[in-house]
């Protein structure tokens, strides 16, 4: 996966809580056996009518959010189904960073595996960012190395990230190769506990 150290981008605000992965990528698009190409189906039922025409009133369809790469959303983002197609769709659409007051566990892990930086920020800061991005063309920078998010108008906040996940994201590592460096330990465990 692509390493992510620092990312500057246009902010798209999605002022909703409990956005579930069924909304992020509806089930009719889970039948594909590839990893790529899910971006066109992102938030499909919110973005498109039954006949496939765009719902002009849905915010992501507004031209001012074209090219957005930082998503700011309400709490419990990514709840529900474990489908990794959700981060695949977000990533393929162009989102590299997601900010929310909280994330569902499985979704959060799936983001890390796909090089998406998911950051938890206090609710007040998220509300502030959502408001700004709704009212103006708003850019943020997410600096993973220094664990800060800032804009060029004086907003700056630090965030927590687990050291292991930080290392994976910054290096763009595939964790299977990391795990296989512990192969001896897996073998030892198997010979002791489960039989070979």
């Amino acid at each position, binding site marked *: 996966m692509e390493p992510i150290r620092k990312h500057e981008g246009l902010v798209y605000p999605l002022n909703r809580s409990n956005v579930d992965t069924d909304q992020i990528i509806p*089930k009719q698009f889970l039948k594909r056996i590839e990893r790529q190409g899910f971006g066109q189906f992102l938030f499909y039922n919110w973005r498109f009518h*039954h006949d496939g025409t765009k719902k002009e009133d849905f915010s992501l369809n507004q031209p001012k959010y074209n090219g957005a790469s930082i998503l700011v959303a309400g709490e419990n983002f990514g709840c529900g*189904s474990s489908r990794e197609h959700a981060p695949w769709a977000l990533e393929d659409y162009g989102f590299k960073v997601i900010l929310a007051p909280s994330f569902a566990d499985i979704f959060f892990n799936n983001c890390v595996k796909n090089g998406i930086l998911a950051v938890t920020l206090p609710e007040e800061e998220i509300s502030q960012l959502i408001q700004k991005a709704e009212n103006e063309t708003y850019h943020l920078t997410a600096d993973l190395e220094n664990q800060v998010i800032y804009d060029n108008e004086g907003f700056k906040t630090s965030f927590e990230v687990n050291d*292991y996940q930080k290392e994976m994201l910054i290096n763009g590592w595939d964790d299977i190769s990391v795990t296989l460096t512990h192969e001896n330990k897996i073998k030892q465990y198997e010979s002791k506990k489960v039989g070979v």
Partner: protein
Amino acid sequence: MTQPKTIVEKIWDQHVVHQEKGKPDLLYIDLHLIHEVTSPQAFEGLRMNGRSVRRPERTYATMDHNVPTRERHIIKDAVSKKQMETLKQNCDEFGIPLADIDHPDQGIVHVIGPELGLTQPGKTIVCGDSHTSTHGAFGALAFGIGTSEVEHVLATQTLWQASPKTLNIKVNGELGTGVTAKDLILAVIGKYGVRFGTGYVIEYTGDAVRSLTMEQRMTVCNMSIEAGARAGLISPDETTVEYLRGKRHVPEGAAFDEAADEWLALASDEGAVYDHTLEIDASEIEPQVTWGTNPGMCLPVSASVPDPAEATSDNKRAEIEHALNYMDLQPNQPISDIAIEHVFIGSCTNSRISDLQKAAEIVRGKTVHSSITAIVVPGSQSVKLQAEAEGLDVVFKQAGFEWRDAGCSMCLAMNDDVIPPGERCASTSNRNFEGRQGTDARTHLVSPEMAAAAAITGHFTDVRQFTSALQH
């Protein structure tokens, strides 16, 4: 004396392969269940990197999400067909046992694991499906994972996991007549919301939990993910042991007794410390119906739809307004006035034999309301056979239900079992998200008994009014 431990701590300690300060633990995975939807990209990843499946015999595959539930072999959707064929090819190539569409063991992955005795206390169990929490009913540590993690488990039989916090949900007292395990878990989520479990593994304890059957326990643990919890489990007891006795993949004879002793020893110790505890009184719970677009938007059948004007914050008001708009409901409308067009009895939450038996008792000798299409989708082909041996298929069919083959079906509507736009369904499944059962379809989650009652009357009806059926 050693420190008292929770079952989660005991299972965790037994499965740590590698531990390093500042990192998650590397945990061994005993059982990996896979299905057609979340596995193809994982196998592709293995192939691209020249990796093999480390322990194919600890992996078990079935087809459930996409399979047709009638006219079994007519898969109209070429993409679905390709996905199922891909699973078959992957299982053949990597030597993984597969219960495919023609196999007598085929069924919903979370129904067949327990049914075959693959699910056992103390195991770490994962699957690329969030409802893997179901297997926690046996005192297993079972959780859903994404496709990258599926690939990781296939390649290494391990996963990196941060040690979870533990939440004890103690359910005191006794559930009333006509009040089910589904109502219990819906009431918990209705009370505490859809994110209180985030970061926790829930252990369900208390008298009301102890008196549940294994199938009822599976219903409760199944929906732990709807509270945000990664997993939910119940300490093993004699009920667990008796359910497992004689199952195909559990040991026999003296080896079974030995295993049973080990299982029972996993139960949380007296005095074990949880990060958090919540207590619930089972006797206060009524049959539940969801009114909104997440499982936390849930009320007793005797209640009325919430009024956004009474919301405690702007955010809550916006959430309720959005949900009522999607669901086409009016504030303060009595839930029992909501008329439905569809009934779905099925899913990994409620498609086991006892679910079908209970629903059949309500339906027996009655007729499905003329405006309703009702289907029963057994959780596995083996549940289907048993139900047919008991004549339940005839009870359902005579009442006007359709009787189908096993699969996930209308729970997520990936196959042809879809609710049309704007129509409303009483569903025994686990998610009432927007579009879950079909684009713009409206889902109300209920127990099998409540779904059966609604099928007869045409609107939500307190199943306790069907008193004669409940005396059985």
